């Protein structure tokens, strides 16, 4: 039997690991798939190739399918998120000069105090901050708007958000085009290594459970290729489960380091995979088991409420109708396909497909098929709770 080929696009980031593992560790092969991975030069190129059919599937920023379905940005197309590929994993960093100004204001340093650090950041910038994010529609942008917005900063007057592709973030810092960034690993650590950035906060300190990347396909493709959709989801979900083991993550670092993927030394990739970040020359940030999830806490489950949160934020910023946008956004995330295609493989299924986003301050047991699913924490730093059904 010849394998079914699926062309899948990715951007060189630590969180493309489930796709790389699905291919390299044989999970795709077990499903009779030849998973061809294509490195893309930019998020817009990845999106266009997916929209126009040059790619069947893609490693996508979680807000992009929602934005595309809402008609925002180029090439409006109905894109579905089959499952979540990763949760959390971003870092916020500032230039050494800005870090020094923050210290001059009394910032004690550290990597985990969003309110305090945010306050010193605002004080040190004179209410004018140029900050780089990888794409206008990204969790990075959403987290920054949420974090600094809650602390009183207003976009775009005080918060000048610029788009810089992840591999070029360190360069933009070195060139002095931006003062700060929010980016996925290993590109924050790369800025640290080059001496042009100091990490001040993990994304997870702003929102403890933020859906970061999704496995995206065209809605029409999923409709027309139900069998292939199922095989792809099973291969990637098994890869995500494999990545839950810390021993395996080390091996994943070796795979990601290869030239065809990240083309970087494995030790810089391991920092994010193992939750052991270095914030500035030699300063170890301590261990975190919440820095980046692929599988634990039902990370792969595409909650409709996550899509609703994204849609509500995009609608607010672009002036679209909130209720209609939330409805369109919710339809992009496909827990229905997740439940059907992953049934019987030992993936626990939550009782509901929506949750109150931000309501869990601690890990809690919730209703599920097996009866022992643990979710959370998923709190926002400022105590926001998002109810997807609130009008």
């Amino acid at each position, binding site marked *: 039997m010849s394998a079914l080929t699926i062309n899948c696009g990715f951007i060189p980031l630590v969180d493309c690991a489930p796709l790389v593992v699905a291919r390299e560790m044989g999970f795709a092969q077990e499903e009779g798939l030849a998973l061809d991975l294509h490195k893309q*030069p*930019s*998020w*817009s*190129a990845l999106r*266009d*190739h997916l929209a*126009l059919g*040059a790619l069947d599937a893609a490693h996508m920023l979680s807000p992009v399918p929602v934005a595309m379905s809402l008609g*925002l*940005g*180029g*090439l*409006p197309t109905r894109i579905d998120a089959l499952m979540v590929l990763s949760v959390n994993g971003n870092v916020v960093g500032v230039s050494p000069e800005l870090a020094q100004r923050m210290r001059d204001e009394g910032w004690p340093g550290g990597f985990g105090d969003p309110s305090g650090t945010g306050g010193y950041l605002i004080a040190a910038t004179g209410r004018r901050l140029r900050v780089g994010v*990888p*794409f*206008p529609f990204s969790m990075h942008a959403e987290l920054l708007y949420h974090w600094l917005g809650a602390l009183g900063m207003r976009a*775009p007057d005080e918060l000048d958000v*610029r*788009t*810089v*592709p992840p*591999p*070029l973030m360190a360069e933009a810092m070195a*060139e002095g*085009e931006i003062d700060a960034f929010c980016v996925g690993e290993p590109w924050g650590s790369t800025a640290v290594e080059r001496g042009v950035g100091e990490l001040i906060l993990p994304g997870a300190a702003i929102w403890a459970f933020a859906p970061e990347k999704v496995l995206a396909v065209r809605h029409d493709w999923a409709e027309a290729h139900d069998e292939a959709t199922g095989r792809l989801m099973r291969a990637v979900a098994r890869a995500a489960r494999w990545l839950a083991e810390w021993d395996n993550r080390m091996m994943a670092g070796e795979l990601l380091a290869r030239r065809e993927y990240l083309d970087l030394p494995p030790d810089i990739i391991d920092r994010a995979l193992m939750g052991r970040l270095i914030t500035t020359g030699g300063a170890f940030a301590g261990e975190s088991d919440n820095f980046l999830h692929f599988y634990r806490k039902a990370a792969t489950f595409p909650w409709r409420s996550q899509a609703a949160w994204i849609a509500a934020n995009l609608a607010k910023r*672009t002036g679209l109708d909130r209720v209609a946008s939330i409805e369109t956004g919710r339809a992009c995330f496909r827990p229905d396909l997740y439940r059907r295609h992953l049934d019987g493989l030992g993936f626990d299924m939550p009782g509901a497909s929506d949750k109150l986003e931000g309501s869990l301050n601690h890990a809690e047991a919730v209703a599920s098929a097996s009866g022992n699913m643990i979710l959370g924490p998923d709190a926002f730093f400022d105590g926001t709770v998002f109810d997807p059904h609130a009008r």
Partner: protein
Amino acid sequence: MTSPLKIAIVEEDVDRSRQIVDGLRDAGDFEVTVLGETSSVTRRLSEIDPDVVLIDMANPNRDSLESLSLASGARERPVAMFVDRSDKDLTRAAIEAGLSAYVVDGLKPERIKPVLDAAIARFNMVSQMRSELEAVRTALSERKTIDRAKGLLMQARGLSEDDAYALLRKAAMDQGKKLAEVAQALVTAADLLK
């Protein structure tokens, strides 16, 4: 009479941008600006305020143009990608040529089509010239390596040029490798043994 379309080309490679400018000049009366430095693209674009922006799809700086598609201020004009979304063939041709185009919303398709047709043709031509040049370069450097390998064999084993070549070919066939690969291996080994 409408004023000529303002077109901005974001391209660092001077040869390539010149080709595209020439192609556009043949296609009609346009006001063309080339942005060679990608670092300040967004600021320059807001100064020029073009109707159409052309950029190589593989250019990683493309993402910085994406924010143009969201008009955040009253003075900014929303920008859509590609002309007419119903014209899938034109969009596909552009993508295949590796060209992305950003077009101000509301511009008539008949004004855009000649621009894109000309740009796509030039993009294709330049890409083809590049791959041909690359092929010539590779062939040349392979021939040099094979010549060096032949010389080494002639010297070490007292062979004639034809015999040295035949020996290389036989080794390549036996190992299922390309002649150039076997020659390269020999040259590398000889350099190491020096």
